[in-house]
């Protein structure tokens, strides 16, 4: 009987032990969990990090510490009345908050509200899928206007002294009503003889407002511009262009919403790269109310992470008589309030 191992057996043992150790180490180092990342080259990564950052010198507004928590889901539209009360639409409801953020009234329209506007005597006009509903503040009067058809998707309402204009994203047209709800005309249908190319509306964002110059401003989102029409539907002029520079409108279809301040300046909202910006009454870029880092998250290169975030990122905006800007954050369902730095408008 031999005692102990021979040199050959010892060497074999060492080799076997080493092989097992290497095997175990390899298994331990093998990333099967995905935590090590996708190992793709840089050109396979969608990166808009540079565009997320806004030059701080261009940010002209400060956000107030207190926001209005709406308590609503699927918020969609905002409006502010002359008294500083804030109206927010979410789902089938419209909730009214006073200047201190306290709820003071509530309306239930029984169907998803896509847009709201405020008329004389506190009347609330709401676009409920395919038709307009008008209610009085005390709910004593409620009128439903006729349906605009199965394809209709109402996204904005603008009110003049004599007319109500309704943006229908589904039919890509602005409908002009009289105050009794009778259709008196259409604006923006493609018409080469009138040099009207038609509205390009890839997603249900199609905003309108009546300006003090008596012209209707209509966002043509797929064309990245705001167009000015007479009430009879003549295209007078347009402004805005596509691009990721801060003075341009980014992505496929922006701006999604806008508001006109009392001094005639325009407050615009963009989705994707969430930006709220100010353009003067002369349509020239003035500055930024809030950029993606403020609105979505600091240091977050991706503008949205989940499909739900991406699809609800079309913020709405309203401005009060004092120039305070109210941004409806449709992701968090809160109203964020911005004031010009130094208190000026």
């Amino acid at each position, binding site marked *: 009987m031999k005692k102990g191992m021979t040199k050959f057996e010892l060497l074999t043992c060492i080799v076997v032990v080493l092989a097992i150790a290497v095997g175990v180490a390899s298994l331990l180092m093998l*990333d*099967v*969990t*995905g*935590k090590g*990342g*996708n*190992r*793709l*080259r840089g*050109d*396979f*990564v*969608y*990166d*808009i990090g540079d*565009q997320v950052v806004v030059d701080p010198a261009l940010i002209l507004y400060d956000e107030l510490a207190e926001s209005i928590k709406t308590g609503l889901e699927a918020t969609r539209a905002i409006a502010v009345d002359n008294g500083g009360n804030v109206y927010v639409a979410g789902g089938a409801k419209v909730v009214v908050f006073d200047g201190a953020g306290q709820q003071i009234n509530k309306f239930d329209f029984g169907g998803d509200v896509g847009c709201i506007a405020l008329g004389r005597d506190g009347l609330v006009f709401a676009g409920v899928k395919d038709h307009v509903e008008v209610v009085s503040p005390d709910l004593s009067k409620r009128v439903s206007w006729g349906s605009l058809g199965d394809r209709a998707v109402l996204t904005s309402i603008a009110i003049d002294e004599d007319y109500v204009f309704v943006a229908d994203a589904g039919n890509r047209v602005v409908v002009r009503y009289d105050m009794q709800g009778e259709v008196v005309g259409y604006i923006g249908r493609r018409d080469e003889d009138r040099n009207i*190319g038609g509205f*390009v*509306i*890839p*997603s249900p964002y199609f905003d309108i407002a009546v300006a003090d110059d008596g012209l209707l401003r209509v966002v043509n989102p*797929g*064309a*990245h511009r705001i167009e000015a029409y007479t009430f009879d539907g003549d295209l007078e002029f347009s402004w805005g262009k*596509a691009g*990721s520079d801060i003075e341009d409108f*980014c*992505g*496929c*279809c*922006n701006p999604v919403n806008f508001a006109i301040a009392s001094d005639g300046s325009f407050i615009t909202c963009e*989705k*994707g*790269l969430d930006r709220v910006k100010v353009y003067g009454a002369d349509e020239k870029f003035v500055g930024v109310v809030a950029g993606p880092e403020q609105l979505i998250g600091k240091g977050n290169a*991706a*503008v*949205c*992470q*989940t*499909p*739900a975030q*991406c*699809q609800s990122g079309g913020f709405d905006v309203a401005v009060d008589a004092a120039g305070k800007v109210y941004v409806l954050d449709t992701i968090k369902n809160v109203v964020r309030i911005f004031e010009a730095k130094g208190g000026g408008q």
Partner: protein
Amino acid sequence: MADKDKNVSRRNFLREGVWGALLGGVGIGGGVVAVKSAKGDTVWQIDPDKCTQCGNCATYCVLEESAVKCVHAHELCGYCDLCTGYLEPEPPGLDTGAENELCPTGAIKRKFVEDPYYEYHIEEPLCIGCGKCVKGCGAFGNGSLYLQVRHDRCLNCNECAIAVACPSEAFKRVPASDPYILKGEH
């Protein structure tokens, strides 16, 4: 008599043994078929509402070329000229030049429909399932581009390597009779 019983017993034993083996084989075979059928009832698929386009689908599949591909829901598409799933975030131009295209493998093709609309489709053999275009489309557009496991390629592994590496639990088993989670049908 005892010898006869012994012979009969041996014959019976052999006969019963053969029958037993046959029945056992049928049982085992049936069990295997049942297990295989049970596995065949479901297949792996990506829930587009949970997918965050992390890129792991492109690199964690056991196949050299991933079974995950980009698909397009035309009914959700805006047919945009400035398509953020097709063009780089800051493209030098708005045309089909390779320098403008977002997809590193050139797997998305576009066709002019009418001013200003374009139709987009995926050349699947070129797509590696990285999800870059899905990210661009979802961030700015309607999210009509999304990732799906293509069942003409998927091996339907018991433990899918991509499912293990998926950070958002978007991979799940769905009935084989309804193997895709199509966005346009939502």
